[in-house]
């Protein structure tokens, strides 16, 4: 009998998106596609709802949100704080705790480090960036800390940007919901993001890769200018590359909990952080994921420190806003296109 609250990632598929959020459901699909994904588990929106219900937070949340208007940032900030404080005081339900502890234990002995991320549901998942639902807690260790991080993700549903976003959509009355993804942490030597097309030019034959040293936070958060590679899907050749100065990186905190932002050794700052075989592996994975989902994907990945050939995908989602060149030639007959070359096309082409 599968749980409605917590479930291993490899038991999820796209159909579970409404219950577990897009991130968790996509990771389940990736595992089915045999893409290397760190093992983990997911919490459903039901877990969040159980939390709100058992702690009796429902009314308090509704009250805090009532009467807010889009532009009133001070009021939104106060409401966010009120709700956040109330949520942090409330305990995570025992049923959720038990299942989290069980699944966490299955990930390994000695409190293995995990990443805890929000997994947005429904329309929010398309605009998760705007909705402020991109909370990520890295290098979390111990079942108790995992539960705390889960609760922090839930709190992020009521961050000022998230409240503002829903106000703009006119969803004031609707109580939001959210899933959470918990995944084994890869101690990344290099990590980054890749698109299965060139997001700048719109070229569908390219994989665009951004990469920097350490955990993915620095690239995702825009804290470094990452190395920039453009690789042909068709021939796997490197079409363009820009190696930038990567001065900071995130590494596991020496305390054993969380990630620390540290300076990159000067001699490594200007070093190209991916070699040809690594690029080749990334492009192979990108194509596999793109084919599987049938649309362009925005993929977060990491290369393990203890295994340079170990490439892991930690997240994928559809590319939503793709830059399109406005002057893309229309699909016309070959002859009329040639006529246009000579200025002999239809009047509108001249």
């Amino acid at each position: 009998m599968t749980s409605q609250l917590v479930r291993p990632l490899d038991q999820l598929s796209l159909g579970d998106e409404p219950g577990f959020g897009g991130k968790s459901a996509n990771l389940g699909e990736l595992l089915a596609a045999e893409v290397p994904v760190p093992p983990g588990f997911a919490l459903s929106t039901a877990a969040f709802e159980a939390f709100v219900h058992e702690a009796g937070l429902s009314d308090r949340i509704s009250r805090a949100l009532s009467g807010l208007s889009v532009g009133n940032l001070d009021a939104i900030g106060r409401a966010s704080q009120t709700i956040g404080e109330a949520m942090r005081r409330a305990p995570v339900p025992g049923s959720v705790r038990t299942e989290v502890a069980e699944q966490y234990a299955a990930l390994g002995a000695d409190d293995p480090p995990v990443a805890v991320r929000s997994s947005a549901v429904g329309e929010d998942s398309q605009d998760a960036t705007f909705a402020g639902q991109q909370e990520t807690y890295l290098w979390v260790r111990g079942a108790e800390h995992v539960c705390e991080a889960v609760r922090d993700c839930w709190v992020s549903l009521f961050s000022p940007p998230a409240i503002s976003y829903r106000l703009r959509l006119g969803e004031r009355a609707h109580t939001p919901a959210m899933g959470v993804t918990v995944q084994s942490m890869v101690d990344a030597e290099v990590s980054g993001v890749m698109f299965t097309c060139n997001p700048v030019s719109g070229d569908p034959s390219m994989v665009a890769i951004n990469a920097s040293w350490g955990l993915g936070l620095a690239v995702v958060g825009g804290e470094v200018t990452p190395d920039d590679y453009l690789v042909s899907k068709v021939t796997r050749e490197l079409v363009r590359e820009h190696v930038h100065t990567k001065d900071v990186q995130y590494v596991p905190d020496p305390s054993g909990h969380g990630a620390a932002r540290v300076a990159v050794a000067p001699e490594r700052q200007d070093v190209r952080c991916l070699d040809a075989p690594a690029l080749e592996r990334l492009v192979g994975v990108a194509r596999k994921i793109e084919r599987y989902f049938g649309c362009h994907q925005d993929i977060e990945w990491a290369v393990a420190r203890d295994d340079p050939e170990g490439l892991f995908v930690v997240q994928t989602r559809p590319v939503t806003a793709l830059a399109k060149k406005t002057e893309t030639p229309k699909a016309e007959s070959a002859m009329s296109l040639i006529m246009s070359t000579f200025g002999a096309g239809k009047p509108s082409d001249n």
Partner: protein
Amino acid sequence: MATTAPKAGAFPSPYEIETPPGCEGWEEMYPYYALFDERRREIDENRFWFWNSMHFPVPMPAFDVICIDSPYQAVGSWQNRVFAVPPAMGIDYRCVNGYIYISGNPVTDPAKIAERAEFFQKRAGYYFQNWAELYGKWRVKMEALIRELGELEVPDLPEYESDEVAFGDERNTAFYEVLNAYGRALRLSDLMWQHHFEFLLLGYGAYGTFVEFCKGHLPDIPDQHIAQMVAGIDVLLFRPDAELRRLARLAIETGVDSAFVQGRTPSEIDAELMQSDAGRAWLEELEKVKDPWFNMATGDGLYHYYGSWLDDPSIPYASLIGHISALQSGEQIDRPTEEIVRERDRLAEEYGGLLDEATRGSFNDLLNLSRTVFPYVEEHKFFCDYWFLTRWWNKIREFGALLARNDFLQDGEDVFHLSRYEVASALDELVLSWATGGVPLGPKHWPPIAARRKELLRKLNDWTPPPAIGVTPQAVTDPMTIMLWGVTTERVQEWARQVEGGTVLNGAAASPGVVEGTARVVKSAGQIGEVRDGEILVCGSTSPAWAPIFSKIKATVTDVGGVMSHAAIVAREYGLPAVVGTGRATGTIRTGQTIRVDGSEGTVTVLTVSEA
């Protein structure tokens, strides 16, 4: 690094360019209409002219001006008067200090453009629909023309005419035959140029449309992949080298390969081969290959001194030596044609598969049409620029020899320092004085003229022409200028930025890859021998006929050229990084400097200022 913003007047006025010291009077080598004349100043000064260094990288000898006049007569006829390309008539040229600047004549009246569009659609459409048949006829025409050139005799002037002239039905005397032969030689050249351009615009246009279509829908696609999808497999231009590879294998099979020692001259090799039966048999096989495959030019054909492999066998012999030593060390030297076909079809399928269905339809149609026109795009060079033209220069040399035998010239080769009208004039006086028995003035008249012009050309060679002169255009719209020379609005703006000098040159990324190395600036085919292993070739434009050095060099930089230029296509075939259309690489870079060529970004950086 030059960062000056482009501005009006970035380029010098053609009327303000100074004559280099000692070059006064250079104008005498060129037709009156080829000069920036005060009587046309108002018009000419307000036009944009760019240096056609792709075709004319060095100062023009007087006779070679025919290779400017005829092509522009021919291309304009087809473009403007036959196909009526709607927005563009023909191309005007002018000469400055011996260098050739060109400028297109646009059509701006919308009514006129619409009128021309009707002609164009009908006539160009007919050519595209019947391409294979028309091109088949074209090859027959060209082969007949080349045969006729071969049969054209340049008669000598006898002491007494033969009995045949006296008693036979053919009563033409030598004076007529000489003048007639010269006239026919010129007419055959006109015909060749007419044929040369019959398919050129349409062929390049179809291919160019495919290139643009790919770049519109696949903005980051490397040019090389586009070329690979279209490239011919059984291309005539690859035949000469294929024949050399076959001869290399034959040499090994018949045990005569030991004659091919690095450093030996062709005649030394031939001498050794002549000493054995197997060697003589090999030489017989070579003779069979020579016609037509040794009609490859050693340069791009538009100057008289670009001969063929027949004139200078050192290039094919160097290839033979290379192929033989590669075979001896067990290397595979054949073009992997099956692999090339597989890869070409795989690329087309993969790229097509990335496009939506409607777009894929246009993509496939354009690809098929490009493949249809491509044999012409590749092969016209062999027929016209190489085979015909190298033989035609030799025909003109025969007239030079006739003039030299009669002391009108010191050396037959000096014929190229007279204009074609002056040669006609010299021949006129020669046959006149032969007929009358009088004392000709020619021997006192022509030799000093030729000597003076040789000196002028030598000095003009040191002058560096600006990439453009006249008015900076707001936008380059002429489809021919863009298609054939790669001169786009961006390119002109880059030139304008570079006018004040700089150490970074920008051009078109023609073949991907980044290398650093020593520059070798080659301004003429005669300098090819100076190129050393591992150097970066810097030239006006590369020529596919320079095949042997492509295996030596590690990158190419040219002054002018676009993705359409044959040179760019061949650079990709050899997998060398190439930046084309830099505007002034040969004027900026010096032999011996270390440069970085980024064929992916289209930049050339001068890293050191030291000179060899």
